[in-house]
């Protein structure tokens, strides 16, 4: 009899700890999801407020403004529909340049400027991040414009 009650307690203990672990797990998972948005979506108000998320697009020609004193950089990215201003303080990746597809992680400020924590432009000068490519596909003509200046690696 005593052995049986012990076993029941044992099972209850395991079930409760499993439930706690599972809840914590789901919570952590949800908190660490990074959403991806295009400039047009942000313009339409479709973005998670006060959350870190990622945006992507092509760095607009002539928009790059580097400070001569600090690591501050301002530029804008576009999906050829809408564009959005980015402010970043840090070292830009080697492949960062105007006309390049980039993905940026950060927060949207109340002034409409996206404050970047990390700028990614990876690996290959002809490479276009898949997310950026997808948001450009919405606008076929824009895509053709981009392909002219940049061969998308197949």
């Amino acid at each position, binding site marked *: 009899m005593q052995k049986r009650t012990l076993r029941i307690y044992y099972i209850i203990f395991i079930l409760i700890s499993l439930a706690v672990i599972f809840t914590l797990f789901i919570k952590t998972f949800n908190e660490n999801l990074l959403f991806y948005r295009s400039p047009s979506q942000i313009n339409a108000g479709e973005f998670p407020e006060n959350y870190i998320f990622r945006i992507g697009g092509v760095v607009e020609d002539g928009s790059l403004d580097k400070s001569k004193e600090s*690591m501050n950089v301002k530029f804008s990215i576009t999906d050829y529909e809408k564009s959005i201003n980015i402010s970043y303080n840090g070292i830009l990746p080697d492949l960062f340049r105007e006309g390049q597809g980039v993905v940026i992680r950060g927060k949207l400020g109340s002034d409409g400027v996206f404050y970047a924590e990390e700028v990614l432009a990876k690996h290959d000068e002809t490479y276009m991040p898949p997310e950026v490519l997808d948001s450009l596909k919405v606008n076929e003509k824009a895509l053709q414009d981009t392909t002219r200046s940049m061969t998308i690696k197949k």
Partner: protein
Amino acid sequence: MIAYIGSFLILIAFMNASLLVLSKPVLSRVTSEYDSLILSTSKLQFPLTFLAFICLIFSFLGDDFSLRYVSANSNSALPYFYKISATWAGHEGSMLLWCLILSFWMFMASVYSKSLDKQFRLKFLNIMGLLNIGFLAFLIFTSNPFEKNISIPIEGKDLNPLLQDFGLIIHPPMLYMGYVGLSVVFSFALTCCLQNDFKPEWAKWIRPWALISWSFLTLGIALGSWWAYYELGWGGWWFWDPVENASFMPWLITTALIHSLITCEQKSMFKNWTILLAIMAFSLSLLGTFLVRSGILISVHSFANDPARGAFILLFLFIVVGGSLLLYLKNASKMNDNTSFDLFSKESFFLINNILLVTATFTILLGTMYPLMLDLFGLEKISVGVPYYNSVFLPIMTPLVLLAGYIPILFLSKRKNNMTKHFFMSLIIILFFSLGSLLFMTQYNLSILLGVFIFMWITFNILYDLVTKYLNTKNIKTLFSNIGMTLAHIGLAVFILGATIVENNKVEKEIILGLGESVKVNDYTFLFSEIIEYDGPNYSAIKAKFIINSDNQFIANLYPEKRLYFSNDMPMTEAGIEPGLTRDLYVTLGNLISDDRWSVRVYHKPLVRLIWLGALMMVLGGILSVIIRKKHKKLSTQV
């Protein structure tokens, strides 16, 4: 010409593998001699693929730009050793490498399987032959490295500068040796399913193969991490990138497998479970290939995207994984499993080890696959942040590594019948030493204490176990037969120590420096003294000279670089690193701010080398246990 021979050899290899698989169903009605055909074709596969691979290497060395693969991945100005490594730098070549290694493992399996029952051996080689056919078909129909260009370019596009590096010469072959080595374990497990049995002596036969694959996998992952550390230019050693996860998941499952195989061998337990682990391990390495090669994940590993390839691998994955799981479900229940064991026994702890490792694998699988699934159904584009992995993976791993240090004590005390005394004794001693070691550190917190504690806990207990075993038997053989296991576990402890300290105590500064200016990081002064311009074989570069002093003592000169590769106008950052067992000093150039002023990254990374040293110890431990087992066997058969 060479390319035609290579093409032809691949076709011959394909036919050879088909012959291997078809010989039994076709010939068994006519003659009973089909078994020698199976054995010889399984050995012939390796030389055939090897020669095809040599042909591809020669096409690269001879700058044969009439081949599309060569022109896309090489350039006449490329140094010859990178021309050789370019052979497996792209998709097509790395698939040929995969086939080569698969045929190599089949060769080894064919040579070393004489001790197995004849019917078992033939079935086993048949399954390996099927895998060979699958991958060769993939190579021939979707990614032939010997495919011709429509018009022959005068110059090749060049190898991606990131891949022009020693680490990348050896990383893929080592990783593939591990990935594909699991195919031996997988085929073996399926044969067991077909035979409805998993005998202890079979577990004994397959364990060295699992250990060797595990060692190669460890080495491959460590090399990838080391490469990322010095080449990607910001000093991280693990990124939880989907491609890294793809190699880490099979590693975790194989780790579980080599532990559960011990129980299979010694107690004839966990048979079903072990077979499932073997199937999972290889399935995950196939999934890894699918993720990397289909172009779903874009990273340095995905060189080209082709939907046909993705579809082929997905179909292949579906057939292999689905088929083997069906076979498993149908047959595994027929195996007799000895299921009763004590709560405080080695078996129950191996079970906990397995559960934790599999759970960890599934949390990584979720983080890797969930974004892909959402994207596939067009629901949402997301990615899973690094904090998820850290906050889920570490709590699962902590009890696991504590357990790794606990098991030796448990069994020592069982022999002496006072386990609580031993447990608390070692706990107090180790806690005392780990608290004491904090006195030597400038910075500490709870996670450092935990890391140091785990390091000492594992090392002390594993060594104590080894010494006691030796003293109990007074036989030098016990020392030898346990040395591999001991070394691998201490390797794990060393890795944990390095990872904890570097993640908690590293100093990373991003600042702007002009010529003649200096920055102080901990006790080290970095003086930006010079800018040098020079030309490399296929690039031009700007090199900065940093003089490092500590307490007015000269330590080293570091030369971080910015390179511009001619062939594709691609910029690259090369870090300047002063390595040391206790700390690494790491400098990279960022962007030019104005005139001679640069933004730079200056890092101090304490004990970062222990991460790879620990991994190397694990590799060595794994290999030693295989070699010593073999020697042991020879000795025992001679006696």
